[in-house]
């Protein structure tokens, strides 16, 4: 049985959930929250069933190529978002995880969804352990990223009425850079990917799917959101005040997401990867670009934890570090496959 309709259903659920969460925040309607969560859960469950079907059909977990990686990560991000907010409702975070999942699925649709048999090196139970645990860690980094973005967004909203919110000009610039720069960086990254795909005959005309399916809708949605935020800035300001915890709590939530994700990523992505590499290639570390970038991701989050725990730094600086960490994570996952030749290139 083809699992694609289930994935499409789950995407529709995420879109509806995003609309529901947005309406809940902007219209200040409490009654929208629970149904939106229910719809998001339906989307996650549909995606999990679809992943299970794909696993059953292929005989291996859906972690072996770019399409499968993106779809699995997209599902894990939505799931982690829902679990993370189970005790403390955070509609803005939940809306953010829906958007991230939709975008990841959109990018996944550019790649071939054909089930291909596993190459010999991937036929190991370490594939399950290494990739799945690393993905759970990465989905928690995604949560931290969304929270960090919201932290900066909240600061800008609060700063529009009280400039003392910012500790200095650098703080203000950093917040604006994150809030305005991240969507632009996403569009630029996608444009680069489209240009890369268009230059490779293997991908055929799939780059146009990326342009019309991801880039254009993202730009339109972003512009729409920016205009609406500007027009209804008063309501948004109130909504942010009501639906987001204070800056300090948000900062602690970012730390919590990273503190949960860091050990999982380190054990799954690095240590299990080392054990597997030792079994498959005869050495646990070979400075392969993918390995090196996984180490770089680990080092960036290590810096975050060191400065936050030992030096007590928090606020915009650590939020920016968390955002940088997630960008590095995404480059490790996808950028390396396209831009740098590596032993892990089968992932692409």
């Amino acid at each position: 049985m083809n699992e694609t309709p289930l994935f499409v259903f789950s995407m529709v659920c995420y879109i509806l959930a995003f609309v529901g969460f947005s309406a809940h925040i902007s219209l200040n309607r409490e009654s929208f929250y629970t149904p939106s969560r229910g719809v998001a859960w339906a989307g996650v469950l549909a995606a999990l069933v679809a992943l299970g079907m794909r696993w059953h059909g292929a005989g291996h977990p859906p972690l072996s190529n770019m399409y499968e990686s993106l779809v699995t990560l997209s599902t894990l991000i939505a799931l982690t978002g829902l679990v993370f907010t189970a005790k403390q409702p955070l509609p803005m975070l939940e809306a953010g995880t829906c958007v991230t999942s939709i975008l990841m699925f959109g990018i996944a649709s550019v790649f071939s969804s054909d089930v291909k048999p596993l190459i010999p090196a991937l036929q190991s139970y370490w594939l399950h352990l290494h990739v799945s645990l690393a993905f759970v860690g990465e989905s928690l980094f995604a949560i931290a990223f969304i929270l960090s973005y919201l932290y900066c967004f909240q600061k800008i909203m609060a700063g529009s009425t009280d400039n003392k919110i910012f500790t200095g000009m650098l703080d203000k610039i950093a917040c604006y850079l994150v809030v305005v720069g991240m969507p632009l960086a996403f569009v630029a990254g996608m444009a680069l990917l489209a240009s890369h795909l268009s230059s490779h005959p293997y991908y055929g005309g799939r780059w146009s799917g990326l342009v019309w399916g991801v880039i254009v809708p993202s730009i339109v949605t972003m512009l729409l959101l920016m205009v609406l935020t500007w027009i209804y800035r008063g309501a948004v300001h109130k909504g942010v005040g009501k639906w987001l915890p204070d800056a300090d709590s948000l900062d602690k939530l970012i730390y919590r997401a990273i503190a949960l994700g860091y050990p999982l990523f380190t054990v799954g992505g690095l240590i299990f990867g080392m054990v597997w590499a030792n079994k498959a290639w005869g050495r646990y570390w070979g400075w392969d670009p993918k390995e090196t970038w996984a180490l770089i991701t680990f080092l960036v989050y290590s810096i975050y934890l060191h400065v936050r725990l030992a030096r007590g730094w928090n606020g915009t600086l650590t939020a920016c570090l968390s955002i940088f960490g997630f960008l590095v994570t995404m480059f490790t996952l996808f950028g390396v496959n396209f831009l740098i030749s590596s032993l892990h290139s089968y992932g692409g």
Partner: protein
Amino acid sequence: MRTIHKIFVSLKSAVILIAILTLLATLGTLVPQNLDAVDYLKSYPRTGHLILSLGFDDMYRSAPFQTCLWLLSISTLACIMTRWKNTWRKLSARLERASAKEIRAYEAGHQLSGSLIESWPSTFANVRTDEAGVQIALNTSGSSSLLGGMFIHIGLLLILAGGLIGVYLGVETVIRGSKGDLVPVPPLAAVRAARDADKIARMARNIRAFSPEDPRLNSMREQIESLHEKYKEGLASPAFRIRFNELWIENYQSPDGRSSGVKSWNSRVNFIEGTQESDQVLVMVNQPVSYGDYTFYQSSWNKFYRKVTVKADYVENASAATGIVVDPGLFPVTLELTLKEPVKPDWAPFELVMVDFMPDFRIINERFISVSHELNNPAAMIAAYDEAGNIAGRAWAFPEDRMSMAGHVTSMPFRFTFVGAEAEYESGMQMAHDPGKPVVWLGCILFSLGMIMSFYVTYRECWLLVYPDGACYIAVTGNRPARAFAEDLAQLDGQLTVIDKDQSHHE
């Protein structure tokens, strides 16, 4: 000395070192590694010299990177020593060092909501009275969490140490063999000599690119020769030999029965040491085998064709041009050729040698190149030598349906047609020895345990202050935000408060 100690203990310097390491590692993935000096100078006309002089052409063995690793190791060691003192203090004498003022400053704390139960001393593991007469009681849980940071740093230090041991004492090479081959495996010292010779040879190439007359080149040449000699000696008296008995490839089958990609490749080998012969062992991808000082991993395979069968036809016109007389009635004849082995057939006045064979050729930039191992588009190049050893002619052999091309490339009185080829397999095995590995694995275990203890185990300190005037204050603290202890605080409050029977009855 104190300043140096301060620098290494400082978190700031650790963060700076991690940041530099991150930057260097990033550069290592962006700058192509281990190319020859000329390639860098050609690809990076402006920065090529800088890349080479800083050793960034081999980033992870370069002096800046290795220095950074060494400094990070020292910083980690300093951190462990400092941490140990603090952790020990917390573990051994937490109550003795705490003051009522400090406890009252904890965010999760308040006055006891009712009267204190009489049996409160029995609910606390430790109680002491301070100078002001305040009784301070403490219960702790999850103390292992305090050791988490220590474990993480010791683990990291072991991983770094194991890695450095591997860099200096480890070896890694590839051995290849076909069915029936007996391949010598040199002792460790010989393989290390070969590794060092390669390193020096690369350095020498780089130096030569800058200054061909550099006096260091002579001594380097001598060093390389002596190391090569050592390796040759190792090959002559190997630690043991490997006999390749079998290599087979398994393919995935599509529903229509066609092969759709390689599923696995496997070798069956014996290890022979002197007169001792081991049992036959199977080496598969993801299933390495250890013998002697080495571990063998099935890393690659190669399919090649040593024996090719061709059909030879007599070409009358060419014969007239070369003046060679042969009996046309003998043709066509079938001939078996072995790669690079000369054959002298009765019907030819010269020796024939198959100098090259390509199973799947393409003409790219006017050159013949094989693009796969499969016999999709085979071509064999046959050269003829006269009695004096001079080239008498060359010819390409193609399959029957492509022989229209052969006329253009034959300068012999014969036309060769490809009939068939016998595939042989070659097994490629990664052979590695790394004495640092056990240290690295131990480090990984400690690191993982440390992270679990630090991030997932909650350390709790439940405090009770009983003032001489009877006032009671409770607080809970630990390695989580104060809000996380709200429930514990309420529980402690309930546990220590006398239940008002009337009130509870009414409730």
